[in-house]
């Protein structure tokens, strides 16, 4: 386990930085994301209404030692635009998930840069062996994204997900450290600082 490792003070790219989320980040904008049908389409959080207290409780679930919740913030404005979770198992494998809640940043480089940062953090800082996640078969933009990052499809959970009444599969994708070393060449133009 990685209990003695500390989170770097700076995890930053050209456009965004990652910062462990605190209860002070549980604000209305975050609630708005969870209530937005475009944002929450592939989030389980869509099944209930949320309050600020719910967000605070959720944030407290993350010990920031093996269970991480990072906010994605814009370098220039410090605007909170999304979140990443990284849950590291005793097997040194990390389950990850993300959302970009501010739709103004959809179609920008923010998500790509933030994914680079979280993968760097997972493999270089936490030294995990593998990062994996599950995606609804209907979430084509996310599938496209993680494919570009070198993730390999490892399995199909049949009829595992409901997408507004449609029952669909969940696809499991995984990325090994060596695969990230290769695929990150594609993103070498993105300057990343982790220190």
């Amino acid at each position, binding site marked *: 386990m990685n209990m003695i490792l500390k989170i770097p003070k700076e995890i930053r790219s050209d456009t965004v930085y990652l910062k462990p989320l605190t209860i002070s980040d549980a604000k209305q904008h975050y609630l708005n994301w969870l209530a937005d049908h475009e944002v929450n389409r592939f989030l389980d959080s869509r099944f209930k209404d949320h309050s600020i207290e719910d967000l605070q409780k959720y944030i407290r679930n993350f010990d920031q030692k093996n269970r991480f919740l990072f906010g994605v913030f814009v370098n220039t404005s410090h605007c909170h635009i999304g979140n990443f979770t990284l849950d590291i198992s005793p097997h040194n494998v990390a389950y990850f998930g993300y959302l970009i809640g501010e739709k103004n940043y*959809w*179609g*920008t*480089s923010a*998500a*790509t840069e933030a994914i680079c940062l979280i993968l760097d953090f997972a493999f270089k800082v936490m030294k995990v062996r593998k990062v994996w996640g599950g995606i609804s*078969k209907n979430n*084509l*933009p*996310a*599938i*496209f*994204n993680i*494919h*570009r990052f070198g993730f390999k499809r490892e399995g199909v959970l049949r009829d595992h997900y409901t997408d507004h009444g449609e029952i669909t599969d969940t696809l499991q994708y995984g990325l090994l450290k060596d695969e990230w070393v290769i695929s990150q060449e*594609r993103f070498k*133009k993105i300057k990343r600082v982790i220190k």
Partner: protein
Amino acid sequence: MMLNQLIIETFSLSSDIIVIDSQGPGDLPGWDSLGHVNLVNALERTYSISLDMDEMIAIETISDIKSLLGDKGILKF
């Protein structure tokens, strides 16, 4: 519609741009995850084809699109 024009319209590029075979996401403005889904939809609509998920994620360059169209019997693009 020619492929070059389809790319220009899908990604709202300047009309005088000539896309080249080696270009892919990251090379052309707008070719991100959402742009890619729009591109796939445009290809399906324009060429009356259907792309499955594996074909969709296999597209990494303009050259890949041309190969895919060729595989589906579309020789004029």
